[in-house]
C-alpha cells in the first residue's frame, strides 16, 4: 500500500532536492491558483494546468502513474459533480459541473505531486517547524506507523473471513460481518495500543515527546 501511495517520494530529481518549505508553498500556491482561477478564463486555467504538468515532469513522476491515480479518483469526483446538473434536471449547473471537475482534477494532481516529492517524515518535520503542536505531531507519527500494521491486520482478517465462507453471503450477512470486522479490528487495535503503551513505558516514556533533529538533507 505504501508503495502505491508515495512511490516516488524517495526520488532524486530536482524537485526532491528543493527545501521542504519551497515544496510545500509551491504546492499551496498551485492549489490556490487552481481553485481561484475562473473557469471561463480558459488561458489562465490552461497555464495553471501546464505548470502542474511541468512540475510532474520535473519530479520525474511517470505519466502512467498519475493517470492510474486519476482513474481511481475521477469516479468519485464525477459523481459529486454530476449530482448538481442532475438535481436541476439537466437544465442548469453544467458550468458548475465543469468547474468542479477541472478544479478537482488540478488540485488532486498538485497534491499527488506533493506526496511524491515529499516523504511523510519530511512533511512532519516541516509541520513541526511551522509550530504545529507536538501532541498532534506525536499522534500523527504514531498513526502513520500503525496505519500499515492495521492494514496488514485487516488483510489477514479479510483473508480469514473469505476462507471461512463457502457460499455467497446475503447482503445483511455481508454487512453484519463487515461491521463485526470493524469491531474486531477495534478491539485488536486497542489491545495493541495497550501493549505499545507498555513498551513505551518500559523505555521511559513520560508523556512528553522528544524529537530527533531532522537529517541534513531535510534541512536543506
Amino acid at each position, binding site marked *: 500500500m505504501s508503495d502505491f501511495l*508515495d512511490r516516488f517520494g524517495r526520488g532524486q530529481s530536482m524537485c526532491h532536492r528543493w527545501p521542504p518549505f519551497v515544496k510545500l508553498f509551491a*504546492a*499551496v500556491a498551485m*492549489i*490556490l491558483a487552481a*481553485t481561484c482561477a475562473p473557469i471561463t478564463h480558459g488561458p489562465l486555467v490552461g497555464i495553471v494546468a501546464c505548470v502542474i504538468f511541468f512540475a510532474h515532469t520535473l519530479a520525474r513522476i511517470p505519466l502512467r502513474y498519475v493517470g492510474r491515480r486519476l482513474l481511481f*479518483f475521477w469516479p*468519485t469526483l464525477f459523481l459529486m459533480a454530476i449530482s*448538481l446538473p*442532475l*438535481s*436541476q*434536471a*439537466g*437544465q*442548469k*449547473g453544467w*458550468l*458548475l459541473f465543469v468547474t*468542479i471537475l477541472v*478544479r*478537482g482534477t488540478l*488540485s*488532486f494532481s498538485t*497534491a*499527488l505531486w506533493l*506526496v511524491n516529492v515529499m516523504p*511523510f517524515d519530511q512533511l512532519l518535520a516541516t509541520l513541526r517547524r511551522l509550530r504545529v*503542536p507536538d*501532541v498532534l505531531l506525536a*499522534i*500523527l*507519527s*504514531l*498513526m502513520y506507523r*500503525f*496505519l500499515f500494521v*492495521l492494514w496488514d*491486520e*485487516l488483510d489477514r482478517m479479510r483473508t*480469514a473471513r473469505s476462507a471461512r465462507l463457502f457460499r455467497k453471503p446475503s*447482503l445483511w450477512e*455481508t454487512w*453484519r460481518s*463487515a*461491521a*463485526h*470486522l*470493524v*469491531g*474486531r479490528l*477495534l*478491539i*485488536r*487495535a*486497542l489491545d495493541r*495500543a495497550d501493549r*505499545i503503551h507498555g513498551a513505551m513505558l518500559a523505555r521511559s516514556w*513520560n*508523556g512528553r515527546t522528544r524529537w530527533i533533529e531532522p537529517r541534513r538533507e531535510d534541512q536543506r
Partner: protein
Amino acid sequence: MHIQDGVLSPVVCAATGAISLGAVSYSVHRLQQSVGDRTIPLTGMMAALVFAGQMVNFPIGAPVSGHLLGGVLAATVVGPWAGCVAMTLVLFVQWALFSDGGLFSLGTNVLHMAVIGAWGGHSVRMFVQRFFGDSRKGIVIGSVVAAWATVMAAAALFCLEFRLSWSPREIDFSKVFTLMVSFHSLIGLGEALITGVAISFVLNQRPELICRMGTPARPIEGTGRSVHPTATAITRTLAAGFVIALAIAAFLSPFASSFDDGLEAVLGKLGIENFNLTGNVPGLLEDYDKVPVPVAAWQSIAVSFAGIGGTLAVFALAWLLGKVLPAAPPQLSEAAGE
C-alpha cells in the same frame, strides 16, 4: 463525503477552516489537560483504526459500496476530544497521502466529519443515553442515533456552505438541498447501522473498552448497578425518539422553507428569461414557471419526509439493535477472532 478543492469558494473554506481550527485547538487543549501518558498511543491507534475501518467495504448495489465514516465510533471509544483529534488527523493523512479531500477544504471536511462527528456525535449520544440510564442498550441506541444525526447535520451544513459559495444564478439550491438530504439520509442509515453493529459487538466482547465519559457509574456490565435513574420504559424511548425526530425536522424545515422562499423570488426575476430562451423543455423546471407554490411545497414535504421518516427508521433500527444484540451470550474474546 470528502469535499474536494474547488467545490466551495475560498472564502467559505477559510471561514469553516477557522471554525475547525478553533474546535480542534480546543480538543487538543482538553486532550493535553486530561492526559495520562496513555493518550498519545491510544489516539494514534484510534486514528489508524478509523482509517483502516474506512477500507472495509459495505456493498450496496453491484458497483456501489459504502464505508464507515467513524466519527461517532471514535468518540464513543476514546471520548469527544481524542475522537475529534483522531478524525482530524485521519482527514489530514487522507489528504497528504491519498490526495483525498483537499487542502483548502480540509477545514470544511474537519468541521463536517471531525467536529460534528465527534463533538456532535458525543453530545447526541449523551442526550439519548440519558433516557436509558447507563445501560448497554443506551450506548448502542445513542450511538446509532448519533451516527445518523451527524451525517444529516453534515449534509445540511454542506448545503448551507454550498449556497454561500455560488451565486443562485448558476444553480437552484433548493433542488440541490433536496437531493443532498435525501441522499445523505441513506448514507446516514448505513453509517448508523455499521456503527451500531460494531459498537454492540465491542460491548459484547470487551465492554470495558467503551468510554463512558460524563457518566459516573462505571460498572454497567451485567451487575445492573448504575447511578443514573434507569427509566427504560417504552414511553421514555418514544419520548426520546420524538424529541430527536422533531429536533431534526425543526432543524431541516427552516432550511427548506428559506431556500424555497428566497430562491423563488430570485428565480422569478432571473430564471424566467432563461426559461423562455430554452423554450418548453419537458421536465421539472416547466412546472416551476406555471405553479411555483405546489412545487415548493412538495419539496419541503419531501425534505421533511426524508428527515422525519429517516429519523423514525433509525429509531426503529436502534430499538431493534438494542433489543436483539445485547441478548447474545458473551463469547470467548480471543478465540472467536480468527
